């Protein structure tokens, strides 16, 4: 960590005590990144950033007030303390939870790759240029690679409070995103995908170019299907996107505010017996690991749904106190600027046993959905209703048929949890395209598809 920041935190701590805060905490986050984008064989954009931000919170006359700064000059300290006090004065709900004394032990964690620190601008540019070249060479119908970027990021988080808790984590990662456009006659299709890597040698440019090339070409000639109620297979990308949109329903905060349909359902069946959902901070040596939450509670493994029975919602310390349980280590802020809420860590709908092909043969005839769009608007997070733009392929007699676009799929998420027929076995937590929310492919009977 930067010495200037360390000194700032020391000074802030000594002033906070003098200013009459009974307890206080800082949450510091920094982010350094470089990114290179290429197009038509040339670097077209190079970005480099250096960002740091600090949030202060302090307990003053029974209220917890927050303040925030990106300016680490000493004269900001009185401003931070004063803002936090001002914010205490207008809060009306008595703060029940104060700062956390910390766990005795934290899981061992290394999200930092020495190998990646060797990454330089020229190497990143070459990676991106090669990827663009190979993707364009994959098929003559690929007209352009509109986005092709490689970036590297290094981030630090420090949480430190007046109860002596100190949590620090530093991690880095390399990301690759490529999106391209293919054209055949008047038909234009696009496809994009991102990966993240912990070692430079893990990036396999041939694999990435082929993957994106295959997927965009497969979409050429896509058209709608007639409007119908039909079984669908959601591939793991579409299933994951849908699940990610409803993780909020499993938060105790949403339940306590009456904003989740799962409120009051702990111990009850909310899904069929094939469904198990786990939230897990640490998954092996994955770069996705989160060793502690924004309150400094160490990573846990929470069985959220066990064979269809709703076992536990996700908690931060405040929601846990209300329910008389322990925090599940899900107290997160989006950034130093954000306030503390409840978010999942690694949220997994566990694998079933069927392969994707087995789902197709079991379905016989229906639609295979490979992508959904409009998730920020087309879902009702409380009722579970969703209606989303989708694309994919027809499935006829158990075989993948022609490409489909310009359709919507509509259903209710909670009813879907009850009626999922078969779960695939294709979640790989360690894959370079894995995200924090994962689901296998799913066979779901009777989904409303709207098209022609």
């Amino acid at each position, binding site marked *: 960590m930067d010495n200037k920041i360390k000194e700032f935190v020391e000074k802030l701590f000594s002033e906070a005590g003098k200013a009459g805060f009974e307890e206080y905490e800082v949450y510091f986050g920094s982010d350094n990144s470089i990114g290179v984008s290429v197009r038509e064989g040339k670097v077209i954009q*190079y970005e480099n950033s250096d960002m740091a931000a600090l949030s202060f919170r302090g307990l003053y006359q029974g209220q917890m007030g927050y303040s925030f700064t990106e300016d680490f000059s000493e004269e900001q300290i009185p401003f931070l303390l004063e803002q936090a006090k001002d914010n205490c004065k207008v809060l009306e709900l008595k703060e029940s939870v104060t700062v956390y004394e910390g766990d005795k032990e934290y899981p061992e964690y290394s999200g930092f790759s020495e190998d990646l620190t060797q990454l330089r601008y020229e190497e990143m540019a070459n990676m991106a240029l090669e990827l663009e070249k190979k993707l364009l060479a994959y098929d003559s119908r690929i007209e352009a690679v509109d986005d092709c970027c490689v970036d590297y990021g290094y981030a630090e988080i420090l949480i430190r409070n007046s109860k002596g808790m100190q949590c620090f984590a530093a991690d880095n990662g390399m990301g690759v995103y490529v999106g391209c456009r293919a054209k055949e006659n008047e038909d234009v299709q696009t496809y994009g995908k991102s990966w993240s890597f912990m070692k430079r040698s893990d990036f396999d440019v041939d694999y990435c170019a082929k993957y994106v090339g295959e997927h965009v070409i497969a979409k050429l000639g896509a058209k709608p299907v007639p409007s119908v109620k039909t079984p669908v297979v959601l591939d793991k990308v579409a299933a994951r996107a849908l699940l990610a949109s409803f993780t909020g329903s499993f938060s105790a905060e949403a339940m306590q505010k009456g904003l989740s349909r799962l409120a009051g359902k702990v111990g009850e069946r909310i899904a069929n017996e094939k469904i198990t959902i786990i939230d897990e901070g640490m998954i092996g040596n994955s770069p996705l690991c989160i060793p502690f939450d924004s309150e400094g509670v160490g990573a846990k493994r929470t069985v959220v749904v066990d064979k269809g029975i709703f076992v536990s919602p996700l908690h931060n310390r405040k929601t846990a106190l209300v329910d008389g349980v322990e925090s599940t280590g899900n107290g997160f802020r989006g950034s130093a600027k954000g306030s503390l809420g409840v978010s999942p860590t690694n949220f997994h709908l566990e694998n079933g046993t069927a392969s994707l092909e087995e789902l197709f043969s079991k379905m016989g005839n229906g639609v295979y959905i490979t992508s959904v769009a409009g998730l920020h608007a087309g879902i*009702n997070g409380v009722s579970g209703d969703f209606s989303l733009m989708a694309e994919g392929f027809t499935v006829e007699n158990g075989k993948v048929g022609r490409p489909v676009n*310009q359709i919507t799929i509509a259903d209710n998420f909670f009813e879907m949890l009850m009626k999922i027929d078969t779960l695939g076995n294709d979640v790989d937590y360690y894959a370079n395209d894995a995200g924090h929310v994962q689901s296998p492919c799913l066979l779901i009977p009777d989904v409303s598809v709207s098209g022609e």
Partner: protein
Amino acid sequence: MLSDVSISRILTAALCHGGDFSEVYIERSKSSSISLLNGVVEGTSSNLICGIGIRILEGDKCVYVYSNDLQNEEKLIRMAKEASASLSEVPGGRTIYLKPMINYTSQKCEIHPTSVSKAEKILKLRKAAETASNYSSLITQTSASTADVEKDVWIANSDGLYVQDTRCRTRLMIQAIASSGNNKEYGYFGPGSGEGYEFFERYDLDASAREAARIAATMIDAKPCPSGKMPVVLGNGFGGVIFHEACGHALEATAVGIKASCFTDMEGKQIASSIVNAFDDARIAKEWGSYEVDDEGTPSQTTQLIKDGILNSYLIDKIGSRRMNVASTGCARRESYTYSPTSRMSNTFIANGETDPKDIIADTEYGLYCANMGGGSVDTATGEFNFAVNEAYVIRNGKVCEPVKGATLVGKGNDVLMNIDRVGNDLKLAQGMCGSESGTIPVDVGQPTIRVQDITVGGQA
């Protein structure tokens, strides 16, 4: 704040190796927010953000570096030099001198939001929350919040341009939730303005609260929306999100400049039905999406995008103007100094036509009337867009009938624009946030009531 001399030094350093143009964007913004859940203050925040973005162009190639360490001039100069060195190894460059500063005031703030006590704002919000809550016994929850920002920006570039602008925006957001059994439906209303706290002094908060509650209470009993292709009447105001998604984004130079738009090379050609006229107008006084000068220091303008169905102009920023060899339309925007600017919309709307909206409904035998829209998204290369409908009704025999819920509309921009067969005379603007390459920025959408002959409606029924 960095001095003029420091800014000149950074602009000079940014051209010390490669690059034909350098630019500095410095921002200092104060924002605050208060939110009430069921009438009780749940959260409040005050943030101060300041930072700098340094951009170097060489042809249409762009290098962008940013930092929030404004104290450290030497570090900023080093970042600028490194950025320049990424363009060329050969030393070169020139010394940049700034012309006198031009001052703009995109929004004149009569009452600074920070000068008003939080207690006073809370009082207003609580009253609005009560109004929403009392609207109907179906309303079980409310949230009411305000957010305001006062932003000062300084933009300087290697042409010697040096401008300063002050921007102020205030927004109210009211959400009501109606419950019935297991079911919950939202109603939302979120007016905003390019003004200070005076917006709250003159605005009827209770009317917004009633509107949010009315939508929730109406939709709670709604049946699932029918599916399939059908005629759709889109109400005025936020209905304009259809033009924003189906056309607006695809007219931005970000997409057109690299030929990745479905409207590439269509200038002067018909892209919409001949009754459609559309504008992007950043100069409407006090409007949420307005500004006097864009984030590259170019004065804003009123741009006619579509004239009688013919594509009249794209939205062009500096890089776009280099790629397309046309002048900037003053539309370069960014969320903050952490984003390099690009072509964006401001207040974008379909202009008034001649038809009375009542006649549009009366003239529709069967279809969907979308009274309130939610957000959407688009793939500008294919023109495929989608957006959610928050309040919809079935139209039968020229009459608005029962409410239906859960509808999403999908289509292709080029098809839908040609399919607009009625344009009403009740133009209204509505406020929203638009997310794209250069971050999330305030924009207005708008339109009079319009009818699209045929569009895919996705519902559960």
